[in-house]
């Protein structure tokens, strides 16, 4: 079995390659079909692992040595354990559904072939990222998905804003990538290995506090930039310039969760630094709260979902931080399902409204698109964590409740709970504005084919039902998830008994409070007095604008300064000009001696000869 692991990223990679080399001959339709087949094949291989040996003990597939110099060695080794298995299942299967959805969604677009190339490449990159046993190989996948994110955000490159948004996303995440690289340097300098499975025992065996602190901060910045955590979240709302399917796959289900995944993988590293996990929890909860508050004031349907993604990722980090990584991973899975659903549905909505993203122009969609309405509603339920009948109730609320038990968990709990209220608020505000009320006259006719309906239906079912894998402790019903992951991630703190019941009740109340808030917000919005008029919230607490004002300008100014000041004046002017003019002047001076008088030549020749003699005579040898 293990020697077939390379097929998992190999299929999409092959698809991308075929597409790049022969795509022109295949034509866009067949490119699309080919591209969709590849993640399906990958997910079949993953399914074979689920059904076959499982991933315990971890499966290893060593391909070849990438680089080896002295004590530095990086093998291309793929590793699948239970955590990885979850991730590759999401990446391949959700990836496949989104490919399938794209067949109709993107038909006739001007960059179809390019789209499928990058989508396949992205799936391959994501699979490599998750299956990497080595930090550098992980970095390879990390950057590949970053590239695909860039290329797909600026997919509709003819609008300069889209290209700009793509660049913004790439640059912000690249800042994180660079710090991640520095963290890798630090770790290697200390432990002489980059293999995760060798590194983590070493970290516990030979702790180096200062270095580990620096390394974990650097790596965490990388994770935050990738996962759009405060204050690196600024790229995600703008990334909505890409097609909705891209937002579904990359900016909701998979790539942005890479940071969370990295934190789960390197939990041993963070745990070795005192106070680090607590900081992660607080920052995660803060991001969850902050982004949810921003989501409440957005008018672009996709920006609502983008802020929602940031917020949900915050919950995942919070889960990791409070020592419940298995719950974080659970929420990652749940979120992948419902957010992919919501994004794809919003893509359909946007098509129906003829590329209008503004939810204030929408309304009453439930009459003409009942299927869309019910699937969307399933996603909204999951996002708002409606008790019992939504998956997030079992994942997100579990994280919030677990944080209550942890020492110093008060702040995360409070932030998380208020975030949950806001979450339900913006989720239902979105739903009410789009689907309820009077039908908008902007609505156009649009028929979803099976290729679009099947993914939506599957994901809607998952958004409702997948939570039943893991009921709260003490409840009747299966408790598969946490115990299954316990060998990898340990058992998280879970509230049980009366305390657990009370916390669950509070969480449920928060959701209902949020639904009420959403209803209220939607009504005010209809009346034209909505929260979107509150610039502070709508602009995301002015953070994006502030950062854009603070950082790029000095950056470019430095470039101009170096060019104008140092290069043009100094290097080109002084150094080069000085050299040239110095030579020219001395040439003139010498040329004055070259007057054609042979006798003077004789004199200077003899003088030179004497000088040479003197030099030889006085040479200290």
């Amino acid at each position, binding site marked *: 079995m293990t020697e077939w692991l390379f097929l998992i990223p190999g299929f999409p990679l092959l698809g991308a390659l075929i597409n790049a080399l022969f795509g022109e001959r295949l034509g866009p339709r067949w490119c699309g079909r080919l591209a969709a087949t590849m993640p399906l094949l990958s997910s079949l291989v993953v399914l074979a692992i689920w059904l076959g040996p499982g991933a315990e003990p971890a499966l290893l597939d060593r391909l070849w040595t990438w680089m*080896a*110099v002295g004590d*530095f060695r990086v093998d291309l080794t793929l590793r699948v354990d239970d955590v990885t298995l979850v991730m590759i299942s999401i990446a391949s299967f959700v990836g496949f559904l989104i490919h399938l959805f794209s067949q109709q969604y993107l038909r006739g677009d001007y960059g179809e072939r390019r789209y499928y190339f990058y989508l396949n490449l992205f799936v391959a990159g994501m699979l490599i990222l998750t299956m990497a046993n080595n930090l*550098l190989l992980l970095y390879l996948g990390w950057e590949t998905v970053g*590239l695909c994110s860039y290329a797909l955000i600026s997919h509709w490159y003819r609008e300069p804003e889209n*290209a700009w948004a793509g660049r913004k996303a790439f640059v912000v995440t690249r800042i994180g990538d660079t710090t991640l690289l520095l963290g890798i340097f630090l770790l290697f300098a200390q432990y002489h290995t980059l293999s995760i499975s060798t590194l983590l025992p070493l970290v516990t065996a030979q702790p180096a506090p200062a270095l580990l602190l620096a390394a974990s901060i650097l790596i965490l910045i990388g994770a935050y930039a990738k996962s759009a955590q405060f204050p690196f979240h600024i790229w995600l709302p703008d990334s909505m310039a890409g097609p909705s399917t891209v937002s579904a796959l990359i900016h909701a289900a998979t790539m942005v969760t890479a940071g969370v995944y990295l934190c789960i993988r390197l939990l041993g590293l963070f745990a070795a630094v005192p106070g680090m996990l607590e900081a992660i929890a607080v920052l995660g909860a803060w991001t969850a709260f902050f982004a949810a508050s921003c989501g409440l004031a957005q008018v672009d349907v996709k920006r609502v979902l983008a802020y929602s993604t940031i917020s949900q990722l915050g919950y995942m980090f919070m889960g990791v931080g409070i020592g419940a990584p298995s719950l974080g991973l659970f929420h990652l899975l749940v979120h992948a399902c419902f957010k992919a659903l919501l994004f794809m549905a919003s893509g359909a909505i946007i098509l129906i409204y003829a590329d209008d993203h503004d939810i204030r122009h929408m309304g009453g969609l439930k009459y003409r698109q009942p299927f869309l309405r019910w699937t969307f509603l399933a996603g909204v339920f999951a996002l708002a964590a409606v008790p019992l009948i939504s998956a997030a109730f079992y994942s997100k609320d579990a994280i919030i409740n677990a944080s209550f038990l942890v020492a110093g968990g008060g702040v995360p709990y409070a932030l998380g709970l208020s975030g949950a209220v806001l979450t339900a608020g913006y989720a239902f505000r979105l739903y009410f504005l789009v689907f309820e009320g009077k039908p908008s006259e902007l609505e156009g006719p649009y028929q979803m084919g099976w290729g679009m309906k099947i993914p939506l239906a599957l994901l809607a079912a998952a958004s409702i039902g997948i939570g039943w894998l893991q009921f709260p402790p003490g409840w009747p019903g299966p408790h598969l998830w946490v115990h299954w992951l316990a060998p990898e991630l340990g058992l998280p703190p879970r509230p049980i008994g009366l305390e657990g019941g009370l916390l669950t009740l509070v969480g449920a109340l928060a959701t209902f409070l949020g639904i009420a808030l959403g209803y209220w917000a939607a009504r005010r919005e209809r009346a034209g007095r909505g929260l979107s008029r509150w610039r502070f919230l709508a602009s995301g607490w002015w953070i994006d604008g502030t950062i854009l004002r603070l950082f790029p300008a000095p950056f470019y100014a430095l470039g101009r300064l170096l060019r104008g000041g140092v290069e043009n004046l100094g*290097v080109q002017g002084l150094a080069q000009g000085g050299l040239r003019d110095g030579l020219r002047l001395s040439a003139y001076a010498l040329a004055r001696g070259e007057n054609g008088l042979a006798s003077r030549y004789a004199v200077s020749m003899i003088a030179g000869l004497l000088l040479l003699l003197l030099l030889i005579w006085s040479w200290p040898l």
Partner: protein
Amino acid sequence: MIVSLLVLLPWGIALWLSLAQRSAVALTIAGALAEILLCIPLLAGDPSAVVAIHLPLLGALWQLQANPLADLFALTTALLLPVALAVQWRHDEYLHLARILAVLQGALMGTFFANNFLGFYIFYEIVALAAAWLILRSGKKDRRAALSFLLYTVTASLFLLLAVLPIYLNRGNSTGIYDFSWIQLSGSDLSGQIQLLLFLGMLAGLGVKLPLFPLHGWARGAYVQSAPAAALFLSGATVLAGVYGLVHWAVPLLPQGALLFSPAGIILAAIGTLYGAFLALSTSELRETVAYSSVSHMNLVALGIFALQEQAWSGALFLSIAHAVLAAGLFTVLAVLEARGLGSNWEGLGGLFRRMPRFGAWTLLFFLMALGLPGLGNFPGEFLTLLGSFRVLPLWAGIATLGMIVNLVVFLRAYERSMLGQINPRLPAQIADLAQREWWIFLLLGAASLYLGLGSQTLLSDFAQLLPVHSPLLIGGAHGH
């Protein structure tokens, strides 16, 4: 014997082209391919040395011997020449360019294989002259650029010669054998301070070719004003002479000096890396961006060399070979633009992707390579260089690492300005996408880049054997593990 042929064959071709001026295309291509074939037995290992023109007190001037690093660099150079010729295919300047390129290539082979310092120096000067000639006679035929290149290199290489003379005299006095051969010059017992001084002198001569940070003044003119094919060869192959000189001559001859200079060198090169990247950021045209990014990359190579550390050295050598592929790719991009009559000025570009999607895709590939995307050719070199030097001087290596961010902005912006967005109304209505020949060049270079990026070990394992030859320091573990 083969090594002599490697030098003489291109020179013979150049001579033939000057005299006969016939069948230039077939002959040059055949010659270029023959050079590649000649390189292959070298890689298999051909240690025989050719010794001729023996002069008393100086040693044999024509003393050519293969060594693993030289073989790799020679092969890289040999592979670049057909690319440069193919890029320039059937342009008016072809004959001219082919002739000078042949001279340049022969001289480069000479610098790689010369086992006698005077021989190396003479070849090195021929390289400088031929390169200046190339700038003067190709592209915009800019005299200032050619002059500036010539001034920089010739002035600087005087220092190189002056710095080696004391080593020669010192060795001659202590052994009684006055000879400029490598084996005779290495192992001098000069004191560290003097070695440092001499190392600086050699660095001036060799660093200017890289070009190292404060000595890079010629680069803009040379890369921007000459024809793309010429700039391709200059930035891809000619710089190798500088790298080779540092690795094969400067460091082994003056190990103590190199060690003393190491921290300053790392700082200098780190500054240079960032400096080049920042300059590439604010340019008025695409060619300038490419030129400065090349400067930035070569400073990174220098960083790796100065670190005197195993991984950094491997990385630097790897990067210098990868940089050849990168330069070929980027300048081919420029050549394609030029062949369609498009300038490289930003004002004349924009939205090209819509007209030339194939071209746009390949351009993106090479831009990605330039910004150090893992999986493509530049990354292993950059990574190893930075990793290795990080273990020596973490702060400055870390600062150099930030150059990756700048590089990203540089190339994404360049891509955005040239390829994406609205079609520039100044563009002609009809622009042909890549021709078959251009597509093949890109495909080969792209495949090379991917191979370097993913199969890096095939090259790196070669370095493992050759490193001890070139730096006794690395065995002693100057900055070892």
